[in-house]
């Protein structure tokens, strides 16, 4: 449906970590982006996974947050209570990458149910670490596919109050308006037009007067990404 680029989404997310000390990540595209950032932009970036691995240095993209390679390469491996109480809650981890099934115009997230809670059409996995990660980490960046199913007027369930500094999709970048906090389209990926993003958004999308273009993925970025995914 969308002519978006997941590759460009990953590359743009990775660039956000160029000057960051530590990032909290789950599996999937956020993990790929963070591993790419460490490979290309920021070798000192500390990757922190919910499984308790702090400073993991994966050479390939893990399927689960607990793959053995994460624990073997980590600076420290801590229990779940320690991860949430000593590391996440006090804000020691600078940036969190979060995903969700639904995102509203303020960047609130639903990962619990589609439909009514007591008789859901689709039962989603649930909160996991997201609510307290969003509360604790000083900066939250949401990574989500751009469609009217994901970007909705009204969440079916409010799982996480995220207040992200950016939402990076396969079509472009949304950032909160400094006054209203409403997510506003501020940048388009190469080859994408604003009307396409409006059509893929389930609420009336605010668009910045000066719309930027994200820099196309460089040969170095694409090469490193291909290498990570091939391993």
């Amino acid at each position, binding site marked *: 449906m969308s002519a978006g680029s997941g590759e460009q989404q990953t590359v743009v997310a990775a660039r956000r970590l160029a000057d960051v000390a530590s990032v909290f990540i789950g599996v999937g595209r956020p993990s790929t982006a963070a591993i790419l950032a460490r490979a290309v932009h920021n070798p000192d970036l500390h990757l922190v996974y*919910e499984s308790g691995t702090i400073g993991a240095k994966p050479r390939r993209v893990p399927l689960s947050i*607990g793959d053995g390679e994460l624990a073997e390469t980590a600076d420290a491996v801590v229990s779940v209570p320690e991860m949430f109480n000593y590391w996440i809650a006090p804000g020691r981890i600078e940036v969190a990458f979060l995903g969700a099934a639904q995102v509203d115009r303020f960047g609130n997230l639903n990962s619990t149910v589609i439909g009514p809670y007591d008789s859901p*059409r689709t*039962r989603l*996995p649930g909160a996991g670490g997201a609510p307290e990660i969003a509360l604790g980490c000083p900066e939250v960046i949401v990574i989500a596919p751009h469609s009217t199913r994901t970007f909705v007027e009204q969440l079916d369930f409010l*799982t996480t109050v995220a207040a992200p500094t950016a939402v990076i999709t396969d079509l472009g970048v949304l950032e909160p308006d400094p006054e209203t906090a409403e997510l506003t389209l501020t940048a388009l990926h190469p080859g994408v037009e604003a009307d396409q993003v409006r059509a893929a958004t389930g609420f009336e999308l605010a668009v910045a007067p000066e719309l930027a273009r994200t820099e196309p993925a460089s040969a170095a970025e694409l090469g490193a990404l291909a290498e990570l995914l091939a391993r």
Partner: protein
Amino acid sequence: MARVATLSDAVAELVGDGDAVAMEGFTQLIPFAAGHEILRQGRRELELIRMTPDVLFDQMIGAGAARKLVFSYGGNPGVGSLHRMRDAVEHGWPAPLELEEHSHAGMANRYVAGASNMPCAILRGYLGTDLPAHTQVRELECPFTGERLVAVPALAPDVAVIHAQEADRAGNVQLWGIPGVQKEAVLAAARSLVTVERLVDELEPRPGGVIIPGWAIDAVAEVPNGAWPSYAHDFSVRDNGFYRQWDEISRERERFQEWLREQVMVGAAAR
């Protein structure tokens, strides 16, 4: 000190119908073999407690052993949905499943409170979300600073079941790699069962090793590869292929039941 027993004797002794059973292991050391033994012994009406229900609870829910699920994240990591859990929640098959859900921080702190014999744990979180309307959590004010916080009730399972790498003959247990919340689950529960990769004469200290003294555990059973398809650090690697395959096995009821019959329930009638 813990009794060294066979898995079937330990399950028969420690897990009863209707029990609240916590089975922990965060990404590694998931006690699959013990879960399957619980199914073979036909336990019913269980309250299953686990932060990440994962493929193990998908199997136990699909088999009809659960009345209630207490959890914080019910997905197949990196793969997708837990189809048996969804079928139970969305269609009541094979039986309706009561849910009590929390965030990871909430569940982890509920175990800490249980292990500490405190009635509740206090944390920041939940406020402003839809979770409080659907789960057990209460808002309170810090008596020192006035900050608005939440309390979650302690978890006090009837029995905790975990898997570890090693135990000695007195039932002292050591696990290493990702430690998860297993120590807290064992100490929060009234009874506990630990399956281990191997029994050794003497535990050798490991970097990051978590030791649980045998006198805090009821039974230890040697079950090599008892965490498959998850893994035991330094003993096995995660069978990501099976986690992907589970998506296909679990999607349809008939295919799941065939798998359950052939891979888990074999020999159940003889017990």
